[in-house]
Structures are given as C-alpha cells and as structure tokens.
C-alpha cells in the first residue's frame, strides 16, 4: 500500500498542547516538513519566542533555543553570523514580534540578515489570556479592551508585512493564512521559499501567517475561521509584499528529496 503520510522527522512524536482550533499545530508541521524537504535538519536552529509557542522546543526535533521576549531576530543575527552554515529561523507571535520586539525585527530586516522569520499573527496575546496586542483589530474585544479596541485610545494595529516591505533589506515578505486547504498549500510554498532563500544565501525572508485563537477570541473554531476570513484578511490582506530575486518554489525533483 502507498504510504500517504508520515510525521516529519523534524517534529517530535509528541502531541501538541495548543488549544483546539489553534493554528500553531498546522504551522509547526509546515515548518517541520519544509526542513525535512530541504534536507537541513542537521543544521537547523529554531528560536522559540515568549508566548504560546514558548514550548516550540518541545515539538521540534532540531536544535532550539528559547530567548527573552521579542529578541529572536537579534539572537538569530548573532547565531547566523557566528555559524553561517546554520539554517536559523525564528518562530514568533505578534506579542513577541510586533510589540516588545518591534525594534529587533525592524533592524534585523533593515540589515538584511540572512535568516527566516515565521510570524504568527492571532491578533492578541494568547498565552497571558487574550489581552490587546498591537495587531488587535479596531473594535476587537480583548480582556484589556472589554469594550472593543478604541483606536483613539489604543492606536491602530501594525501591519508588519507592509511596514517591513518599505525597507531595502528584506528579499521576501509574504502574508499567508492557514484557514483552508488551499491557503495551507500557499502557506507551505511561502515557508519553503523563505527557507530556500536562506539556504541559497539570498537574505532576509519573512512569512506572516494569520492564525486562529478560538479560546481567547471566545469563538468556536468554525466561528474563528470566519473571523480570520471576514475580519482579519480585510485588515491584513494576503499576498506577496516583497520579492526581490528570491528563490522560486520548490520543484518536483526537490520534493523527492533531491535538493
């Protein structure tokens, strides 16, 4: 019988402890499969953020480091420069990357560090219990904006892809979603390209994935999917924001493990 699925060897055989309906599981698997596919598991180093994905080191079967809140791009810079052969990626949430770590991500991008950044945007601080994040949509209710985010008081959400795309440093910036099979395929392609860029020495790659947080949004997983489609995607449109001489998608023979 033809085997249609195996767990990527870049992921441990360990059940995810994320909430039901959370997108971290899907994104972990895409990253794990990509590392397998590109054959770089023995030289990949992942950086876990502070936030729900703080336990990413429990799930990835590669070298991982957990670092202070918001600092992964700075740590990644040091790692990549001291070990250029390593494939260094940070995996960060919006509380980590778009709030306390805004300076780090902007400057790593501006320097064009040859690293890969996976940015998981669920529009709130998930781990601490669903507080307002910089990415929280106008009017969105959180535990610290019980009446909905009032932009006159709390400012406007940050669009990280659009912001970083204004810089000369990055080679590739794309926003994806994992709300449907088709979008999961697109997200997979984007993450593959982001890793390939690094392997080929092209420079800074950034993939933002819109993610569901049913628990903290107070929605069922199905309602949360609708929220991603009807609310988040309107404010955070999917698409390629920057692509300067970046790697092409992974081709057929590469899928067969002949990279």
């Amino acid at each position, binding site marked *: 019988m033809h085997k249609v699925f195996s767990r990527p060897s870049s992921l441990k055989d360990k059940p995810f402890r994320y909430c039901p309906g959370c997108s971290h599981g899907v994104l972990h698997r895409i990253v794990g499969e990509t590392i397998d596919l590109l054959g770089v598991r023995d030289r990949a180093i992942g950086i876990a953020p*502070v936030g729900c994905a*703080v336990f990413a080191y429990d799930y990835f079967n590669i070298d991982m480091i*957990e670092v*202070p*809140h*918001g600092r992964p791009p700075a740590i990644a810079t040091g790692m990549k420069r001291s070990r250029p052969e390593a494939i260094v990626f940070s995996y960060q949430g919006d509380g980590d990357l778009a*709030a*306390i770590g*805004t300076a780090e991500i902007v400057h790593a991008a501006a320097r064009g560090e040859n690293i890969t950044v996976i940015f998981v945007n669920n529009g709130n*601080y998930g*781990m*601490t*219990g669903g*507080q*307002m994040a*910089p990415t929280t949509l106008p009017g969105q209710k959180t*535990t*610290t*904006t*019980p*009446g909905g985010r009032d932009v006159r*008081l*709390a400012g406007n959400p940050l669009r990280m892809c659009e912001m970083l795309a204004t810089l000369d440093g990055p080679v590739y910036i794309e926003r994806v979603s994992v709300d449907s099979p088709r979008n999961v395929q697109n997200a997979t392609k984007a993450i593959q390209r982001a890793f390939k860029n690094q392997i080929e020495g092209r420079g800074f790659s950034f993939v933002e994935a819109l993610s569901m947080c049913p628990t903290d949004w107070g929605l069922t997983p199905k309602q949360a999917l609708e929220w991603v489609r009807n609310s988040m995607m309107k404010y955070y449109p999917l698409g390629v924001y920057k692509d300067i001489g970046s790697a092409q998608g992974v081709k057929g023979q590469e899928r067969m493990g002949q990279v």
Partner: protein
Amino acid sequence: MGATTTKIVAVTGNQAVAEALRQLNPDVMPAYPITPSTGIMESFTKFVSDGKVDTETILVESEHSAMSACIGASAAGGRVATATSAQGLALMWEMLHIASGYRLPILMALVNRALSAPLNIHGDHSDGMGMRDCSWIQLFSENAQEAYDNTIMAYRIAEHKDVRLPIAVNMDGFIISHSIESMTFIPDAEVKKFVGDYIAIDPLLDIDHPKSIGALVLPDYYMEHKRAQHEAMLNAKKVISDVSAEFARLFGRKYDLFESYRLEDAEVVLVALNSAAGTIKDEVDRYREKGVKAGLLKPRVFRPFPYEEVGAALKNAKAVCVMDRADSYGGYGPLFMEIASAVQPHRGPVLFNKVYGLGGRDLMPLDVDQLIDETIEVAKTGKAKMVKEYITVRN
C-alpha cells in the same frame, strides 16, 4: 478599631490589588501584560471600561515603555501606577532609577516571579531583590489582605513631602496572586478620605512655571542628588510607621516595619518575607506547644531596611535562620545580608542562611520543621555547620 463596616470577600491577590487601585483611582496606568501580574490589569481595564475609574490606561509595547510612560505621566503631575513581574521588571530597570532620581511617587504592584533563564513563571523574590538598589521603597505582603492594605497605604508614603520616592508593593506570584482567600475591603469613601487628593510638586503641566527635569549633572552635583535620595529613604521609615499607625487606628489592621510573631522571648527565630510566613507561623505554633521558644520575624519594609529595629528585636535570640527566596550567587542571600547587618552591632544570635523556594518550589510545613530543628541545634551548639545552604534541592 474604627467604625468601618466591611464585608468579607473571596478574591485572588491580583483582584485585591486591582480593587485597591480602583479605589485609589490613579490618573494614568501604563502596563504591558506579564504573568502572573496580568490579572491586575485585566480587572483594572474592566473598571476603566465600566467607567468606575477616571484612569487613562495605556497598553504599551513593552515594560520599558510602561515605566517610561509612568515617568512621563508622573512628571506631568499625575498620580500614576503600573503592575509587572520578573522579566517585565528587569526590562524596566533603566527607568526604575530614573523614576526615583526624578523623585516621582509612582506606585508599582510587583507580583514576585522568578527570573529567566531557565524560563520560569512561578513565584520567588529574584525580581524584587534585583530592584533593591534602585531607590524604590519596597513593601512585602504575606497575603492578599496585606497586599491590598499596603497598596492603599502606598501613595500616602510615596507622596509624603519628606519622601517623594516611587514605591513597589510585592506579593508572591501564584501563591498569592492566583489563590482565592477571604479578606475585607475598606469602603470607597474611607479610602478616598485616607489617601486624599494628590498635590503634585513642580509638575511639568504647570505651564506658567516652566522647568526642566533630568538635566545633566556631572561630578559637581551628582552626589548631592544621590545623598538626598538616601535621606528621603531614611525619612520614609518614620512616614511608613506614621501612615501604618493611622491605618490601624482607622481600619483596625496593625502594620509595622516588620511583623514579630511570638518573637518577644524567642530563642530560635526564622526570618522570611511574603507568603512563606503563613506556613512558618503554623509551625512556630506547633513548636511553642512542644515548649520550644520559636518565633518569626517577617520584614514588611525591605527598603528602607529597619536595621536598628530588627537588630533590637533579634538581639536576645540564640540562633536565627534567615530564609531567602532569591540568591545573590557567590554571596549570601539578600535578606541574610540585611539581617546580618542589623544584628552585627549586638553580637547577638548565631545566624545562618537557607535559600528556598526558587522558581516557585513549594515550602512545606515539614521543610519549616527541619529548619526549626536545625535552628534549635545551632542555638544549642552556638555554631552553624554551614552558613549558607539551599534546602529542598537535588544533590
């Protein structure tokens, strides 16, 4: 006891402090959520949303910015508060010195948590001890009631004209912040009357009298500023005693610079901060029933540290075990160093130091019993086998 009517409530430590902050009604409250202090801001933003306070909350992008916003708001002339823990406090460190150097009476609810690395979210005092030298008044609280009462008293102390320093009210992460206990709140009107209106000194918003804050001061005057901060800290001791006495008169709960529990004739004494004191009191009672003259000294005020008073309280003890829920690696525990300084002029008891409960490891009654037993032994022999040792730790 005042004529206060209070009802008993069941709340967490975080809810208790949030309730105190609601009653204090600060002008501005900037914060960034961090476990285990998150619940304070969560409850407080609900008060804001429900129109129960006049406070402007600012949800900033990091703790460094939270304390910076506190400084701006306080320098402008507002009554200001924030809440944080561990890494959050660590990130504020640069601004902590600036808050005290500007002499701004900012109130911080500090829910004590271990510092990374390794990453840990549970309660110990590493964060609070890390701000020891930042010229902030530091109050410690055994339970939710004490955290609430200390918070209610905080502005009266910090804003006093002889003090004018920022103040941090500590309570143990999770053990207190997340546990529900029964306690009493003071009615709003009485809190309002006790705390009084804020009169800002030299606020930047007094635009008819323009001024600069934070000017460059080189070797010519820097030391005078720092000496003034030290004097203000010394003044704070009396202010804390006075405010606590007034609080006791009005509301019936007595606080001092430290708590003495069965200490008057105690021969073997344990010293500990915050929630551990609750467990220790039970065991002190048990040993007292067995005829052992055991006692507890629980510092409430860590900065300014009441050296003379603590020294006098401990001078007749035979042996004192100082328990630190934080360490100064390669040195003694921070509380031990204070107690040693306090008893030094008295040539009093034999001291030894135990580090316990780091990263939230539980302190069980049996652990306390072992410490009391060891203290009895030290009192007998007049000698401690090891001056400093960790307890409940793997070899």
